[in-house]
């Protein structure tokens, strides 16, 4: 009648991608302490990303940005009941091993931290914990999936409060998927070459008309309208980093962005949640940035 405890398979592809599927239509919020994590959960976040500094502060402070202190991650895990994610540096499988041992629910191999390897990303198949990776275009997304990523997020430009790069990356990924879906069999080989991605994945995307894993959006979302925009463009969920806790009223911004993500195509509700919100995080012009985080990753 019931399955024994020994007949269970953990850490499978299906289980890893499955959690990403459950987060669709939701908001994943960056938090730097247990108090913020609670604010995020109370506002309806589907998950939190535990880190020491939000991207806007990493940008301001400079220096090497690394994985968070385990004590910080544990404090956040102990206060919320929703999934807790944490970031490892690109290629830093040592940090990823620590995060897996901490039993975080997802690891973000993130360009927001300083890369540890300028050629290799983490071999994510070697882990039971699922990974999310950033991408600026379809080729990058497929390379990350071939390394074992179970979720892709468009990179945008983190810590800027400027949605323009997120839009650029989403449009690039989704536009190429639409073109690929109409390519004939000979053209698909050329696509694989151009994208520098495995042919099997190119085939799969062509057949399904979408990535084999969920595609979320990150990097620059600062208002409910930003969330609605990227959801209408085809993102399946949103990551909000500095946009909530750098705003004038974090609990209200958090709640409003959750509502806007759920009701992204309903202007009446978008008006309601946007009204009288107060100051969004201060934004930055992309052309004036010293560091373009989205350029990290290969």
């Amino acid at each position, binding site marked *: *009648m*019931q*399955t*024994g*405890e020994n*007949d*269970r*398979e*953990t*850490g*499978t592809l*299906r*289980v890893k991608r*499955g*959690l990403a*599927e*459950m*987060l*669709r*239509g*939701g908001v994943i919020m960056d938090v730097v302490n247990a108090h913020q994590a609670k604010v995020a*959960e*109370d506002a*309806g*976040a*589907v*998950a939190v990303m535990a880190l020491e500094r939000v991207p806007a502060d990493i940008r301001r402070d400079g220096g090497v940005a690394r994985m968070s202190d385990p004590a910080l991650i544990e404090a956040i895990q102990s206060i919320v*009941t*929703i*999934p807790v994610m944490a970031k490892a540096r690109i290629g830093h499988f040592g940090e990823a091993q620590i995060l*897996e041992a901490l*039993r*975080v*629910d*997802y690891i973000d191999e993130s360009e927001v931290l300083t890369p540890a390897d300028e050629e290799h990303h983490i071999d994510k198949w070697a882990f*039971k*914990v*699922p990974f999310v990776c950033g991408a600026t275009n379809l080729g990058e997304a497929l390379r990350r999936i071939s390394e074992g990523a179970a979720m892709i997020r468009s990179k945008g430009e983190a810590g800027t409060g400027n949605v323009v790069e997120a839009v650029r990356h989403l449009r690039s990924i989704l536009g190429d998927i639409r073109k690929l879906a109409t390519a004939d069999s000979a053209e698909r080989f050329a696509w694989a070459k151009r994208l520098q991605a495995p042919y099997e994945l190119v085939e799969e995307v062509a057949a399904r008309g979408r990535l084999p894993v969920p595609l979320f959006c990150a990097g620059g979302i600062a208002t409910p309208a930003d969330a609605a925009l990227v959801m209408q463009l085809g993102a399946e969920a949103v990551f909000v980093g500095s946009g909530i806790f750098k705003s004038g009223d974090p609990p209200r911004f958090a709640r409003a962005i*959750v*509502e806007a993500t*759920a*009701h992204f195509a*309903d202007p009446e509700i978008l008006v309601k949640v946007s009204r009288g919100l107060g100051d969004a995080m201060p934004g930055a012009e992309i052309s004036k940035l010293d560091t373009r985080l989205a350029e990290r990753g290969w």
Partner: protein
Amino acid sequence: MSAPQRAPRVGVLALQGDVREHAAMLSELGAEVVEVRRPEDLEGLDGFVLPGGESTTLSLLLQSSGLFDPLAERLAAGLPVLGTCAGMILLGREVLDGRSDQRVLGVVDLSVRRNAFGRQLESFEADLDVEGLEGGPVHAVFIRAPVVERAGEDVEVLASVEMGGVKLPVVCRSGAATAVAFHPELTGEDRLHRLLLEEVASRRKGAGA
């Protein structure tokens, strides 16, 4: 007296979660799918699905959208419903390890523990026999899944898993409601959705007679 001709109209709660997989499965089985985000979307429905997702988020969005009370009323009045994972939590009467202000719909007399197996690393897949389903075991995917810790007397337990030597229900039925702790929609397993549509068909036939 003849059976209604139009396809059954099944609502899928579309505020958050894996709505697409449920919708695709129901369409494939011949249902007309309505994505439900507002109270007016509940009109004219013959059946309902509560998808997988984050139950604390769904509980909040159900309240802010004004859907909570009308949906609870429709379900209490016997609208056939299938809930998976977060959907099981929402169908129950009591949630354990939930958020302190988390509201549930209270359709089935269950006490459901969230994240009963632990964090994502404990998520798993396994074959599971479900009573009343023909054609062999169900391949079940449990993602940070809940289990039932207490089931009321009118609740039929159709499948259980073992945890620490104790059998805990993961598929339960009561009246026209079926609560499932795993995700049939992720594996192309459509027998539980068929059950829902059978329930819908028998109610419509009853109403038309």
